């Protein structure tokens, strides 16, 4: 029943076509505002909440950069909702993170219509700035001209090029200089009716191309996970992998599903007094400072590995370029599999630690009455 609408555009006028599309949405009062990536007046591209149509000229949704996982922004926008209708253009990892935050009551989707967009991956923030400084455009990126830069590590092994659980989807994969708008849910179709857009069949070989991308990325993922798991098989190798961590906790700030207002590691529980440090030094002989780096990462694994959507923001945020994404994604694959749970797969699947059943996991104790 999925129907498409084709938005053709001349070469170089992708963003132009999209701004007309979104402009119509605001003018016809379908939404009061749209949250999507846009070029900043000064430099670079950031997610922007645009409520005046004339400002839409600067939008660049397919800019190969995700400065922050937009789930955090939609959460901020809707935790105590404005009540005014809005739209948000999100990649698949952002939608999946938003679903987990909604389960944790940190966001509501009542008055936000989700526009998923196909995601061919993104650069790290500093790479993107260099790419755009050299004149690189979204269309260059989409056509494969990366100007020598590399897509972020996490994106290379991401299995979700297409965003699920959205109302409308902007499709690029399988289309030639056209964007296909796919109308999925009632809310999505209501928007279509308001715009009076006709529907037609989607791009023919889209599904096969999506599968091809998924297959290629899965192989990459399995290879990367095997390599990571081989490399970090004990605490020492984990310590080596995390060498350089200074407990700045920036990866927690960037992580969309790390939802605490105040992380326990910054509370006085971990503000140790002198005698404790001296005690640990006595015991070990030599005590790395700052302490609790491994403790922090292992605890964060315990807290969010079942919610991790593999968006790679932790690696991007780390000032010391520690490869956190492979660590969190590899462990997340195992912990989520143990509870047959996939982060972001469905809005009504209870999170593993938020529920329990009496006749499950008998093998944990291996005891039968």
């Amino acid at each position, binding site marked *: 029943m999925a129907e498409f609408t084709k938005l053709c555009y001349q070469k170089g006028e992708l963003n132009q076509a999209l701004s007309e599309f979104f402009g119509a949405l605001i003018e016809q009062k379908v939404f009061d505002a749209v949250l999507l990536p846009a070029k900043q007046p000064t430099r670079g591209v950031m997610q922007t909440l645009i409520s005046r149509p004339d400002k839409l000229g600067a939008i660049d949704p397919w800019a190969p950069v995700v400065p922050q996982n937009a789930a955090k922004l939609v959460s901020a926008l809707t935790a105590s909702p404005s009540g005014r209708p809005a739209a948000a253009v999100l990649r698949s990892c952002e939608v999946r993170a938003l679903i987990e935050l909604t389960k944790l009551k940190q966001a509501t989707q009542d008055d936000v219509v989700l526009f998923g967009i196909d995601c061919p991956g993104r650069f790290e923030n500093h790479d993107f700035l260099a790419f755009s400084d050299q004149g690189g455009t979204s269309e260059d990126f989409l056509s494969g001209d990366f100007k020598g830069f590399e897509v972020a590590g996490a994106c290379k092994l991401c299995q979700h090029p297409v965003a699920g659980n959205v109302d409308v989807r902007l499709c690029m994969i399988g289309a030639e200089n056209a964007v296909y708008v796919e109308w999925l849910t009632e809310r999505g179709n209501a928007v279509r009716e308001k715009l009076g857009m006709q529907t037609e069949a989607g791009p023919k070989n889209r599904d096969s191309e999506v599968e091809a991308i998924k297959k290629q990325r899965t192989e990459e993922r399995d290879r990367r996970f095997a390599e990571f798991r081989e490399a970090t098989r004990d605490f020492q190798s984990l310590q080596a992998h995390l060498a350089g961590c200074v407990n700045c906790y920036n990866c927690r700030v960037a992580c969309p599903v790390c*939802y605490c*207002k105040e992380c326990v590691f910054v509370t006085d529980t971990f503000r140790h007094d002198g005698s404790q440090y001296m005690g640990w030094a006595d015991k070990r002989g030599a005590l790395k400072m700052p302490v609790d780096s491994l403790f922090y990462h292992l605890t964060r694994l315990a807290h969010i590995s079942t919610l991790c959507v593999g968006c790679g923001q932790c690696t991007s945020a780390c000032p010391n370029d520690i490869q956190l994404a492979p660590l969190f994604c590899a462990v997340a694959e195992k912990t989520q599999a143990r509870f047959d749970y996939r982060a972001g797969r469905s809005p009504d699947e209870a999170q593993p630690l*938020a529920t329990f059943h009496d006749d499950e996991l008998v093998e944990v104790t291996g005891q039968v009455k």
Partner: protein
Amino acid sequence: MAALPETSQERIGFYICHCGINIAYKVRCPELAEYIKTLPNVVVSRDYLFMCSDPGQELIEKDVKEYGLNRVVVASCSPRMHEHTFRAACARAGLNPFRAFHHVCVREHVSWVTLDEDQATEKAKDLCRAGVLRVQHQDDLFPKTFPVNTNTLVVGGGIAGMQASLDIASAGYQVYLVERQPTIGGHMLQYDKTFPTLDCAACIGTPKMVSVGQHKKIEILSYCEVESVDGFVGNFQVKVRKRARYVNPAKCTGCGECTQNCPVELPNEWDVGTKKRKAVYQSFPQAVPITFVIDKRDRAPCVQTCPAGTAAQGYVTLIREGKYEEAVRLILEKLPLPGVLGRVCPAPCETRCRRAEIDSPVSIRDLKRFAADQIDLGTFALPPVAKQPPEERVAVVGSGPAGISCAYFLVRQGYPVTVFEALPVIGGLLRTGIPEFRLPRDVLDREIEFLRRTGIEFKTGSPIGKDRTVDHLLSDGYRAVFLATGAWESMQLGVDGEDLDGVLPGLDLLRKKALGEEVSVGDRVVVIGGGNAAMDACRTALRMGASVVTVLYRRTRAEMPASEEEIEAALAEGVKIEYLAAPVRILGNGGRVTGMECIRMELGEPDESGRRRPVPQPGSEYTIEVDTVIPAIGQRPDLSRRDCTPGVGFDRRGRVEVDPVSMQTSRPEIFAGGDLYTGPATVVEAVAAGHEAAISIERFLKGEELQANRGEKPAGEDWAPVPAGEQPRERAQMPEMEPKERAKTFAEGQQGLSEEQARAEAARCIACGVCCECKLCVSACEAKAIEHDQQDEIVDLNVGSIVIATGFDAMDPTPLDHYGYGRLPNVVTNLEFERLSNSTGPTSGKILMRDPQDHFKYTRPPASVAILHCIGSRDKNYHEYCSRTCCMYALKFAHLIKDKCGHDTQIYNFYIDMRCFGKGYEEFYQRVQSEGVRMIRGKAVGVTDRAESPDEEGYLVVQAEDSLTGQLLRVPVEMAILCTAMEPRPDAVEVARTFGISTGREGFFTEEHPKLEPVSTPTAGVFLAGACQGPKDIPDAVAQAKAASSEAQSLSTLGQVVVAPMISGIDPDVCVGCQVCIDLCPYSAIEIDDFRGISVVNEALCKGCGSCAGYCPSGAAKIRHFTDKQIFAEIDGIMASG
């Protein structure tokens, strides 16, 4: 960085206790004290012989003052033993006990379990170091006190429950005593005598029961069960299910008239199956409360399936008792035409009769007919009639079964009813559709005459239709109209030649015959159709002289809608049936029928009714000569009905549209039902529809809501078990005229059951619903105390303490098949013997042997008895524990037998060890031995009736080795008593879960401490008493009851309870409102504060389980006294040496 906390000087006092030698013999205490002294902030470190002694505690208080200590750590026994002692000491020294004190266990967890001294000392050091580090992170806590509700709930009305209730109530506190049986008393009141004093159980037990029954402060909730318990010590909210007793306690005087008249008998649980009781019963004469109770399971399957809901099991039972008038009166409660339905009803009830599991269903319809035929409706007392104002007149259009039924139920409510019938005769299809040989005219007239007597005004020859419409009736002053004009218009065949002379629709034939109009059939007759109408038509044609009658049916026998009996009867009378054949054209000559062209059919795919659609086979046409063609392929309401009742909707098939529940049409004052609504259906469905319409019309006239609580149809499958060992007996067959004979006459073919046939057939009923609602008890009860429509209800109680005294069960020895229980009638259990010996038992106290032929008959006293101890007790394969009471009651049995059966009775007790440990017990043992009872020291291994020598013939032979002589004995006796083990109740685990306590390995409830806290449980406020905590005799049970009552009283007297402060708290600044803790909390003690978007703990409900703290990633939720810093400190302490 936040300002460094001002270094509040930690001043710790450490004390290692020798505990005499219990700790010191493995842990080198001085060395430990020395080591701890070296730790930071430790000001005092001592070892002392007995820290828990007064001097030990004073030592702490003195040091606190002298050295200004603000922390105290004691290493000694388990904190579950003396934590509160040392906290009290710290409190006396002016410190907040929760901030200051931490207890380290170095006895149970170290010295007592570690063999090597060095390892024990090392381990003690680690644990003490952990304690010293932990205590520094503890903060002030203030225990909360809550008011205590002074009511007490006692569960179980046995001797323990009664005694506890009496003691608590006599202290002035209110007691609610919940007992699952209809009476309190428990097992003790089943016994005859009690050991060792040989007091008769009733003599010492009934006074307790009576005083409990009369005590102002004890409310007995008998025949009730506790459903749920919430809250905490001092503040329990209990929900109790009061099962419907169907007898009003306020009115019942316990006279027993009802039980005399109750026809339903079954084994009495109180007498463990040695004696029978009635469906309405009292467990035993001295029952408290005296109120009788009716054992009513789900309605029997026959009652559930009858569309009119007649009490089938009821009137069948009444017929068995020969009470035919009562049977008819019971039938008349639900349907007005007993004789008619006794003949023509298709009896759906018989399809679900569970007697079929033994042999074949009970023939319920024939019994209904039998009952109706026995009484003279002319003089039969009219059912009671309520009085209504005259102007509330109701008109009924159509005198078929639906109309009659509606009129009947309205007139019983006192409404004046006029039935308008177009035809000159009353009865609708009963009169014109069912031939005389199935429903004789006099039976129908008799029953209509009876209805006339009840006050219904019948107006024949007054059709309501075009000229006199329904609106005329309304304007004539009728307040409501019930349309029941049925569906008697025959459906057309739709083939040409149908209008030829000699084509006579089935119903027209039957109607004309019934009204005596001129009608005749030719020699060769063909009836088309497969329903009951077709059967009636072809059998009528036979009787009108036709020589060849053939039925054409387009499907096969399996799909024929007519009932089996009708088809069999027709075939027997010579009717031929041609299956898979259908008419194509009726051939005529000069306007007269001469023949018919037919075609063969075959069955295709099923149509929407599920029956396979017949498809004509091309080229299979054939013709037959025939004089008369009688189509009988279905009926429908006459279409003229539609235009003469404006405003009422009809569907295209001419059926009226009504609300299925209230039978109301689109016009509020017009109702409709019966075939007019459903199309052709059975008579009993029409009667049921009439009854429903009557209910709606009465509510409509009273302006009441029509839809609400119309009493849902009885359902459920909780029935009495199909009795084992019931002899199969075939169904009663009514005498019938010879088929060839009856084919010539319109007289009734079936002559009805004889009386003795009927009563024997009625006796085959196995009383599935137990109480059959025959209402004999209602009429027998002068106090009018019986209320058959009572419902279960839930009672809410608020109590402060709970005493559980649910008692025990005696083990069923059937699985130990080598003792022959169940197979050999005179091998009895201890409880069965108690009932034999009890004066209210089956033999009024005489000890008699059981009659091998009849389980409930008893013959003569036994000349020799064997009493077998330890059956199921002290046995690894069953119960390892000793049941403590068997030796003593075995001796009691021996004495009773000697006393009641004569001193020459030979008695052998087979024992392993005689356990006569109580006061006066050994003396009783000696006395019984002096009476000549033979004690054989050897466990009996089996009881057999296979004799191995002549003098064993006819005896029960008990085999055992007498270990004192080493001789194998085979002792022939006439009766063997098995002293079976005392077992926990089968539902002990569920009961434990309901009250938040646990069961031990053997299944009895677990007390707080086997030696020192026998009656309290780890769950504060819940206490135990009696055998539910473990096998024990009456003196111990009573002692425990008194102990439990004092525990409950101490709570109530104190009036308040201190609740440990270790409960959860959520830091409002850190909580982000993810609400996961709310889902995890087992006591729903956390709510969301929508305004601030954070979770808040309800401190009254929180029990400090830590589920929330265990999840909360940010640490917002913390359990006081178990914070992260404290646990981390303990871990650091333990691992410091690692």
